[in-house]
Every structure is written in structure tokens, then in C-alpha cells.
């Protein structure tokens, strides 16, 4: 029940919350204390070290957490959820079907580097968006085929606007 698999950046960390003040991380034991300071701000004490965290909970499993200048997106799943997730991921038919890429901010589409039907690798640049007077590379979040492109070079987009899908 209190056995979690937490994904932070590219790491997976196993955490067991034993009780109100003890937990284990990959089997190492910690004494903990957690309490709120004010809106979005928490103090977490692990053994003798105190951390101040700023956090937004995006949904029940997804947190944005800022510690000492480093911000991470953290996904927390129970061990059971994680198993289900892995099964799904490894099953033959699983793809990032129609993964939709949206504009992270308003701006101007400077260049479209990949056309419909082209294969892209994860991390490859697909669109260049000009915003805040700077050129920003929008990259493929996963490998796949460009299925649709919803914008044209020179068009202005709002934040959250659909840009393209990868299948």
C-alpha cells in the first residue's frame, strides 16, 4: 500500500513509507518530517538535513518540485500502478499513439523542419518557435512518424496551441 515507484527525470526510485516518520529509499532507511510553511512551500526533514521545497501538484500522481534551484517533474505510482504501467508499455501494440505536441508559449512559427510522413528521433528538432525575441527549438518528445502538422511557417500561435502529432 505504501510502496511507491517514483520517476524523477530519468531515474526510478523505490520508496516505502513505513509510518508517520520513517521511510526507506531503495532499502536505505530515513527518519522524516514534512510540514507546510506557506502556500506551495514545504519543509522536509530527512535525518538531520532540512530541505525547503516549493511544489505544485499537477494531478494526483504528478508534481512539479523545486529544491535548491533544481526543478523536476515527479511522477509517483504505487507499486501496483507501476506494474500495470510497465505491462502496458512493453505490450506489443503500445505506441505513443498520436502524441500531441502543443506550443509551450505564444510565439511565431519561424521554421518547420519536419514534414508529414517523416521519421523523427526523440529529441530531434521539429519546429522553431520565436518567442521573447529568441528562437526556440521544439523537439520531438518521442521517436515516431510525423502524422500531422497544424501550423504554417510565419503563423502566430498561442500557448497550448496544437503544433503537430507523432504516431
Amino acid at each position, binding site marked *: 500500500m505504501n510502496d511507491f515507484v517514483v520517476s524523477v527525470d530519468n531515474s526510478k*526510485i523505490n520508496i516505502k513509507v513505513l509510518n508517520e516518520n520513517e521511510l526507506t529509499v531503495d532499502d536505505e532507511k530515513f527518519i522524516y518530517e*514534512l510540514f507546510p510553511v506557506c502556500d506551495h512551500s514545504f519543509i522536509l526533514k530527512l535525518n538531520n538535513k532540512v530541505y525547503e*521545497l516549493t511544489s505544485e501538484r499537477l494531478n494526483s500522481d504528478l*508534481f512539479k518540485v*523545486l529544491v535548491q*534551484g533544481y526543478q523536476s517533474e515527479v511522477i509517483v505510482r504505487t507499486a501496483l500502478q507501476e506494474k500495470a504501467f510497465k505491462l502496458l508499455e512493453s505490450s506489443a501494440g503500445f505506441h505513443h499513439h498520436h502524441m500531441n505536441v502543443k506550443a509551450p508559449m505564444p510565439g511565431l512559427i519561424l521554421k518547420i523542419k519536419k514534414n508529414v510522413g517523416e521519421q523523427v528521433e526523440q529529441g530531434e528538432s521539429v519546429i522553431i518557435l520565436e518567442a521573447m525575441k529568441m528562437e526556440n527549438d521544439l523537439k520531438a518528445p518521442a521517436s515516431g512518424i510525423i502524422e500531422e502538422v497544424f501550423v504554417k511557417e510565419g503563423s502566430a500561435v498561442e500557448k497550448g496551441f496544437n503544433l503537430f502529432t507523432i504516431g
Partner: protein
Amino acid sequence: MFNKILIANRGEIAVRVIRACNELGIKSAAIYSDADKTSLHTRMADESCYIGNSPAHDSYLNKEKIIRLAKDIGADAIHPGYGFFSENADFIKALEKNRITFIGPSSKSVSLMGSKTEARKLMDKNKVPIVPGTTEAIESVKDGLIISKEIGYPVLLKAAAGGGGKGMRKISSSDEFESAFEATKREALKSFANDDIYIEKYVENPRHIEVQIFGDKHGNYVHLFERECSIQRRHQKIIEEAPSSFVDELTRKKITSAAVAAAKACGYYNAGTVEFLMDSKKNFYFLEMNTRLQVEHPVTELITGLDLVKEQISVAAGNNLSFKQSDLKINGHAIECRIYAEDPSNNFLPSTGTLIRYIPPSGPGVRVDSGFDSGSQITVHYDPLISKLVSWSDTRESAISRMLRALSEYVIGGLITNVSFLKIIIDHPSFRKGEFDINFLNDEFMQNLMSQADIKYIKEIERVSAIFAAILKSKSSINKLHAGQTDSLNHWQEQMYE
């Protein structure tokens, strides 16, 4: 002095000017757009006037509105900050016509230095060393090829109306010349409405050294020593320091004399900066002159003890400089980091949103010039600069330790910032040793960002984030099981999140 100063700018530099006005007992008037309702400059000025919609051309770049406003509210001077109208000769002329004092140089100095070829010609005439190349626009590919051969490849093609690293192209051999020539001309026309371009020798791995100068309206000139701004990404300065660890006393004497000569050559008054490239043998070449206050002016303030903005205001009011060259000496070492709302792990994509928590560092030797605070919005409309963090100490080494300490204290919640990226640079062995040039943040550095970070430290941070999320998740599961159970953590969790 003045009765009321209108500040035709926003963000940290507007706040900086408001503070100076306050200390001088001069009323300050801010302007703000829709996007800046929650910005600090809007809250801090004695008066704050709404100037228009968020896009800059509707607000901070609306010349007519700003001048009309200045007259309406009885402002007798305008401080332009940097960017926007700070180097716009037409704006200065319009102010002269309206009998409003511009806190900056004359329109003539600005025009002279605005044309890079004119500036090069003037410097050459006044024996300020310039990068080898032409002082006139080149007319044809044929001329260009001849000149480039003379200078020797690689060369740079540069827009005469450009500046700040914009509108230039490197050419490594004659094969590349023709297409580069045409592309640069097209870009120059598009960006600066002027397709004059000229040729400069490409200086290999130079350092960016600039000299702060000051002049008054009575012909007095001083320099305030040099700054080193070699740590740049895409020609954008990120970290600046004063003095430069690369410049020895003899070179300092030569380069500051050249800077003062440059200022005299264009009859300059107010604060200005003469930028140079310096090669590995400490030869230096005039690059351009910025006829305004620089972003990085605080490092000079910290090593000289002067207040450059107060001095700007005083000089604009017609006073003599309040100090002489012989009064000045370098005291300690100062470093500035520009804190940007951008994501280093995602190609420095700007990050926008609300500052849900904002705690600037403080304590000995730390200064923060910020334009925002908890609750402020960072929007897409302007430069993503949140603040400037400056450290001072008696030595460069301890100024670096102090900067690292301050970066670690900085809490900026709600946005992604470059704070962790800055830590990597400041803590880098080459930076610590002072061994770098303007290509320090090259592609290789950027691709190896993660391996340059303190991986052990990042693992710790990731673990902390993971533990936090797991505890919260565990609290929620408990609550589902034992409904009605009172639990303070659960209580506030609901308040915060649901």
C-alpha cells in the same frame, strides 16, 4: 536637479532607477503595460501610469504616448534604462523638442556610434585600435573578395547598423563569400532597414572586455575600469565580472586610455561603455560603443563604490562629475549572474507563469536587483530576465564562493530558471581559474552540461523530490482508507491542492 523623472522602461532596471530617484529625493513615475501590473516597478514608483497593451510597440516602444505622458504628469526628465529607447537618436531629438531632459548622451553621440562603419572610422582616426577590416560599407562581392584576401580568412561580415552580436556571419574561405554576402545583406535590410555591410578580421577565441566610461557636459571624462563579459551564450552575456582576471595593470592602462579616447572622439556625456575584443596576447580591438547604461553596471558600482544611476541623473542635470579619475581605485572583485526564466535542459526555452514563491539571497556581499516578487507574472512579451544577482568580496576566489552560496539560497518557485546552469559555470574549474574566452559556452560545453554538473548532488536533489511526492501520495491513500481520520498534513494538503 529634477523634480520628477519618468522611467521609460520596466523590470529590474526600472526598479534600479526608482531606487536612485528615491534616494535623491526626486519623484519617480513608472509606466506599465497590461503584462506588468504585478511587476515590482509598477508597485515601487511614486506614480505608475498605464501605457498600453502588452506588446512593446503598444507600450514601452510607443514614443508619442510616452512623451505626451511625460508632459501631462510634469516630468522634467526621462530615464530610458537599457534597450527600448535608450539608443534611439530620434527619441532623444523628440525630447529636446519637448524640453524634456534625456538622461543619457546627446543624439549626436548616439547616431555616431549607431553606425558601426562610422564608429570604426572615427576610432581609427582617434588612434583607438579597431579590428582589421573596412571602415566603409563594401559595394560588391568582387571588392569583398579582394579585401578578405588581404585581411586573411576567416573574416566576419557585419551589418553596419547592427550591434550586440546581431547581423553577422563568419566566412572561412573565398568559396563561401558570395552566398554569405547576399544572405547577410538580406538579413541586415530586414533587421535594421539598412543593408550596408562591412568586413572585419575574425579574431580567434577572444575575450570580451569592456570599459565603463563617464563624461559630463563640461568636457570631463573618466573611466571606471574594465568589466569582463566573455561568458556568453549566443552572443548573450550571462556572467560579468569586474575587474577582469585576464587584464594586467599595463593592459588596463592602455585599454582604459583607449576607451576615454573613444568617448572624447564622439563628444560623449553620461554613462557609456566601450566594448573591445582582446586576443590571447592581450591585443585589443574596438568592437562597439554602447551609448547607455549597461545591464552589468552593478559590478562596476561594487568595485568603485559609486552609484552610476545617481551620477547619470546628476550629469544629465548639468552638474560636473562628482569625482575625478584620481579618486577611483579598484576595491575587491564583483561578479554578476543574470537570472533568466528559461529552461537549460530544454534548449533554454523561456519559461512563463507566476512566481509562486520568491526568496532572493542576502547577507554579506550579496546584492540582488530584481524586477519581480512573489505573485508577479513573467510573461512572453519581454526579455525573460528576472533579476541580477551580484556578489562582491575582497578576492575573485571568495566572490566565486559567495556567488555559489547565493545561487544555492535563491528560491524561485513557479518557473524554470537558469540558476542550476549558472551554478555549473561558476563552479567550473576553468571559470574558477579565469581560463575562458567568448566561446566557453560552445556546443561541446552545452552538450556535456550534465556531466559537468555535480551528479551526486543532483541525485540527492532528485531523491528529495521523490520522497516528498511519495509522502504526499501515501497521505492521500491513507485518507481514502480511513475516511474521517483527522490529519494535519492531509488538512493542509487539501487546502493547498484541492
